[in-house]
């Protein structure tokens, strides 16, 4: 059995996206900046895609900037808010402790350049508290950037409420919605979102393509200087094959969203209940306020990389927050942020299932994880010390 359960890392391109991409490559190869018919046809396709995408999040087409993906969008959003803030003498930014590195590393850079950063705690359930957000807002706060849904533990943040608080205080609100676009309903107007980042390959579109929504009234600051593409805010000939494919993928994702989420959340809950039978394990993040496809567990006494490789032997592709899987020394900052100590953060497993996951596959995953965990524990000196009573269990 082959089960791809790492959709939070990337998704398989949909047929509609592949068709849109090849259609573009074959037929709409002109440069949208060229004035002859072939170029203008390409321009039409570009603007059609922009309209489709804008519609999905209830934005205006002119508020959409096409980028190379989530990281670029995040960088441009933060730079935009920072430059605007600085010009007004506002150099304080609020974010959360478990943002994607595209946000956290950019914030580190801004901090070195004189900005003050407040990272809100995300607590054991992986959700920020609104009272803590409101208390953190100061006179000189120029930006609140909080992700819509976390990439590792899938927890969904109260975006509408955050938007309302930011509006009340006149602070720009950006959300990294890379894990959410195409999976959760988003309405930038109703939710008071000023800037939003998205990436096509998380919703069955192609890699290397994404977009940034910037509300009218905020002037985006360039990361890439050059030609006048994207209203002069992002130079470089547009990646039209990618953009057309992204639009097709998003259209399909949104059309099936409700149905898919009902199905996936049922399987998710089934997986959670099955994996909870493993002794001394714990679900990471809130059980309900999470993406429909996301399951993230910590298993005490073992290390995550072994779990992944043994699951791979059984045809299951998954992910882990262990240090060993990333080449880093510390385990996932997300798991540390929700209070998992190193010892159990190393033994984590993330399953992010796709829309086509079946109950039968879920059963196979549960059985496989149970066997793999038992096997690795059978020769773990940590597990021996725990079961011999020489050490105390952290996860009950």
């Amino acid at each position, binding site marked *: 059995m082959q089960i791809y359960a790492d959709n939070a890392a990337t998704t398989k391109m949909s047929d509609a996206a592949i068709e849109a991409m090849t259609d573009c490559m074959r037929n709409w190869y002109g440069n949208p900046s060229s004035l002859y018919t072939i170029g203008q046809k390409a321009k039409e396709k570009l603007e059609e895609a922009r309209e489709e995408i804008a519609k999905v999040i209830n934005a205006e087409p002119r508020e959409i900037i096409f980028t190379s993906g989530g990281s670029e969008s995040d960088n441009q959003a933060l730079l935009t808010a920072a430059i605007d803030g600085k010009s007004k003498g506002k150099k304080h930014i609020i974010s959360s402790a478990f943002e994607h590195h595209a946000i956290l590393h950019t914030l580190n850079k801004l901090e070195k350049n004189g900005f003050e950063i407040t990272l809100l705690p995300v607590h054991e359930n992986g959700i920020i508290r609104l009272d803590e957000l409101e208390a953190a807002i100061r006179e000189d706060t120029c930006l609140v950037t909080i992700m819509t849904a976390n990439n590792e533990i899938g927890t969904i943040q109260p975006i509408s409420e955050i938007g309302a608080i930011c509006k009340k205080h006149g602070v720009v609100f950006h959300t990294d919605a890379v894990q959410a676009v195409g999976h959760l309903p988003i309405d930038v107007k109703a939710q008071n979102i000023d800037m939003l980042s998205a990436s096509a390959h998380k919703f069955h579109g192609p890699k290397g393509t994404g977009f940034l929504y910037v509300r009218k009234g905020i002037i985006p600051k360039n990361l890439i200087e050059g030609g006048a593409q994207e209203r002069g805010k992002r130079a470089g000939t547009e990646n039209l094959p990618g953009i057309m494919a992204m639009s097709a993928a998003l259209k399909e994702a949104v059309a099936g969203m409700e149905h898919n989420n009902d199905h996936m959340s049922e399987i998710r809950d089934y997986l959670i209940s099955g994996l909870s039978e493993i002794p001394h394990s714990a679900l990471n993040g809130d059980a309900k306020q999470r993406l429909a496809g996301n399951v993230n567990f910590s298993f005490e*006494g*073992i*290390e*995550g*990389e*072994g779990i992944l*490789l*043994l699951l791979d*032997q059984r045809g299951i592709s998954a992910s882990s927050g*262990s*240090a*060993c*899987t990333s*080449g880093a*020394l510390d*385990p996932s900052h997300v798991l540390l942020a929700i209070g998992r100590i*190193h*010892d159990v953060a*190393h033994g984590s497993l993330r399953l992010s299932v796709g829309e086509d996951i079946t109950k039968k596959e879920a059963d196979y995953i549960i059985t496989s994880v149970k066997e793999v965990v038992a096997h690795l524990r*059978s*020769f*773990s*000196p*940590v*597990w*021996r010390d725990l079961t011999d009573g020489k050490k105390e269990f952290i996860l009950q």
Partner: protein
Amino acid sequence: MALYSDKVMDHFLQPRNLGVIENADGIGEVGNAKCGDIMKMYLKIDDDTITDVKFETFGCASAIASSSMATELIKGQRVEDALKLTNKAVAEALDGLPAYKMHCSVLAEEAIRAALEDYKKKKSEKE
């Protein structure tokens, strides 16, 4: 290219000398759970020759494979020869490790050395 060599995968999927030795003549444990690697080695030694060796490891695939390979390399060796085991020899026997996983082979060397030192200490206490 795969992350690991076939040898690493072989020793990870079918680790040699897994387990514990009751009343071992030497036991060595190195690493810590915070960093994500712990290795524990058990030695049975007769007449300064390693007659049996077992290990338990908490860690990634290369840590498990490194401990497995290290036990294979020293099994049947004289104590003074086993003390010469280097992490390089472990890594080479595994057909190499990714650069950021070399510390796993270092840990295997240290675990073997710790078990041998424990044996020597116990032996000198007896004498």
